[in-house]
């Protein structure tokens, strides 16, 4: 399934925008960057569907829209079922000779709440049934649209309004759900992680996801200045730090075979390049409460889980 497709920064600049300017995302919005990058991977006609969430809200306040392609939103927990419905309808139209195109790509967009939590049933069902679509998870690690509440994608120790930095409990108790591994376990053709800091890697993976025949899952880390509590100019920097600290390693699994992507592979080959998670945590206000003597052990816990997961990933990628 290796993609022969080549992409340069010049192509990127010349490709027409599908996700257009004028939307109402916050300054420094990571998800908006992720959307723009994913849609740069377009190879032909696309129909998109979006779960309820920040990006649905900021891009479609009636009567305005930022979408240059057909797009539908229906609810929060069902975006994978919507994608399945569109894909099935296209199949029916094609069978009847009523589809004007050889193929139409279908992309489902959802945040972490719509994926890890309320939408996982529909996602799992659609993956099991093998619908041909690309599911893009833009992960800003909390329910940002409703004002920063914890989700299954929120990391351990992070402050949110429902996992506050209390005097007794310092932020989120639980750990981030390994959603990528869950999707690989569905035995679908393509699963990958990506970070908006590594745009070429992200666009290339989005393209491979579109080219895959069957369900493809792209997990894009997309920092949120409002929810993560950092200056709006730091979004890309933090997205890069997540990879450099192995908090969010970049990999892909083609037909279940894991392989590290270049930015993480470098760290695997030269472990001295792996930065401590502290570097990532200290630049974000959502972890600020951990930098006091009584809660410093939580930083140790985070380092431990990150190391354990990184080791496990290296094993899956045959790098140990």
């Amino acid at each position, binding site marked *: 399934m290796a993609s022969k497709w080549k992409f340069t920064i010049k192509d990127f600049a010349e490709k027409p925008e599908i996700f257009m300017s004028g939307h109402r995302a916050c300054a420094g919005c990571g998800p908006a960057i992720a959307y723009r990058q994913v849609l740069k991977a377009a190879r032909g006609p696309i129909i998109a569907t979006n779960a309820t969430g920040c990006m649905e809200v900021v891009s*479609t306040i009636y009567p305005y829209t930022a979408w240059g392609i*057909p797009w*539908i*939103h*229906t609810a929060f927990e069902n975006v994978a*079922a*919507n994608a399945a419905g569109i894909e099935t309808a296209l199949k*029916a139209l094609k069978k009847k000779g009523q589809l004007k195109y050889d193929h139409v790509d279908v992309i489902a967009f959802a945040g972490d709440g719509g994926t890890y939590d309320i939408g996982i049933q529909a996602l799992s069902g659609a993956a*099991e049934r093998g619908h041909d679509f690309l599911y893009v998870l833009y992960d800003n690690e909390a329910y940002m649209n409703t004002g920063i509440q914890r989700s299954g994608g929120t990391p351990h120790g992070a402050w949110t309004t429902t996992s506050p930095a209390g005097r007794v409990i310092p932020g989120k108790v639980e750990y981030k759900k390994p959603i990528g591994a869950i999707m690989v376990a569905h035995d679908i053709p393509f699963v990958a992680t990506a970070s908006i800091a590594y745009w070429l890697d992200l666009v290339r993976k989005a393209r491979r996801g579109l080219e895959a025949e069957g369900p493809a899952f792209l997990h894009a880390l997309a920092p949120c200045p409002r929810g993560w509590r950092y200056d709006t100019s730091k979004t890309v920097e933090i997205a890069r730090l997540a990879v450099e600290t192995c908090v969010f390693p970049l990999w892909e699994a083609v037909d279940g075979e894991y392989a590290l992507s270049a930015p993480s592979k470098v760290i695997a080959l030269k472990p001295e390049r792996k930065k401590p998670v502290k570097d990532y945590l200290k630049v974000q206000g959502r972890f600020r409460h951990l930098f006091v003597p009584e809660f410093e052990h939580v930083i140790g816990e985070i380092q431990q889980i990150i190391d354990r997961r990184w080791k496990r990933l290296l094993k899956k990628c045959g790098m140990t």
Partner: protein
Amino acid sequence: MAITKQNLRALNGDEAVAYAVKQSDVDVVSAYPITPQTIIVERFSEYVHNGEVDTEFVCVESEHSALSMCLAASATGVRVFTASASAGLALMHEILYVTSGARAPVVMAIANRALSGPINIHCDHSDSMVERDAGWIQIYVENSQEAYDSIIQAFRIAEHNDLLLPTMVMLDAFFLSHTLESVNVLPDETVRKFVGTRKIPLIRGHRGKLVPFKLDPENPITMGPLDLYDYYFEHKRQQEEAMQRAPRIIKEVHDEYARISGREYGNGLVEPYRLEDAEIAAVCLGSTAGTTKTVVDQLRSKGIKAGLLRLRTYRPYPVKDIINTLENVKAIAVMDRSHSFGAHGGPVFHEIRHVLYDASIHPHVVDYIYGLGGRDMPQSLIHEIYKDLQKILETKRVEKPVQFIGVRE
């Protein structure tokens, strides 16, 4: 037009629905099994696996996804169908509103079943009554023949470009869904011709030009946007305006179908039975109407001026027809197969009494909650109801405006 020659088949209600869907050139069916609707999806699966239909049939992981799939497929421009009941319909609740708000003409069959808890698989109307405000057209059928006929009509009604209203057809659990009946079916080509192909209306797109109202890469539109206080209200009002147009379309489709099939159900909205000179009458929905007609005949043979009004459509609510057919009746018993706890009677009672307030004379109207969880409603109990009405007629007094019937005290 001459009445088409038809085949008599032994079908239960679910099978009659599946057969109608098979003949209606449906592009996408997405459903989840739930008793007593299951036979619909089982029969349809057989049609698919035996190559008798072209339909894309998707067995999803929940009713929520079943309707979500149908909604998105419908928005892509194809004809869709799903079926459910009880808890399954309740799980769809959220998406029922999204579907009608998106003006997606989804057709759905409901095998009316009690809601949990306690869990019960048998007939009452609680599941669909709770969805009466969801913006769907609701058609309640009396028998399996009508289930077959109504499903075919439903595609024409839902997809009519003056409406674009999702439509649900209700058949009583087990009494209809699982009971074998002689059903006349039209030839495939007759149904195919009657339903036609789905026509997509043109709407004003984002750049002001007329574009088809569907997800179309050539003419991209944004569907289901965030719609706040500055436009939401107008969009909801448009749904009501479409509902106001619905009675005319439902009647037209019903009449056209009657001309080819030879079967009619009142005027398509209500079916009055021996009501012209009736002094006492019952009002009900669904299969109970069949039993009640027998009771009316028995009473008439004794010279008692009894009648029945069966509501076929519950949404749109046939206000004018109810007033016209009931205003000269002196005492009316509404039969509710669902209940609104803590309210003064069931939903059908509320609305019948409510519209009769606008009638020139106000008859006595009483309510009987019956048959919850599949409790049988035999002729003897219906006779009791008419006896009560006769008493009201004599005494001109109502002792109990709302009561449960057929229940242990």
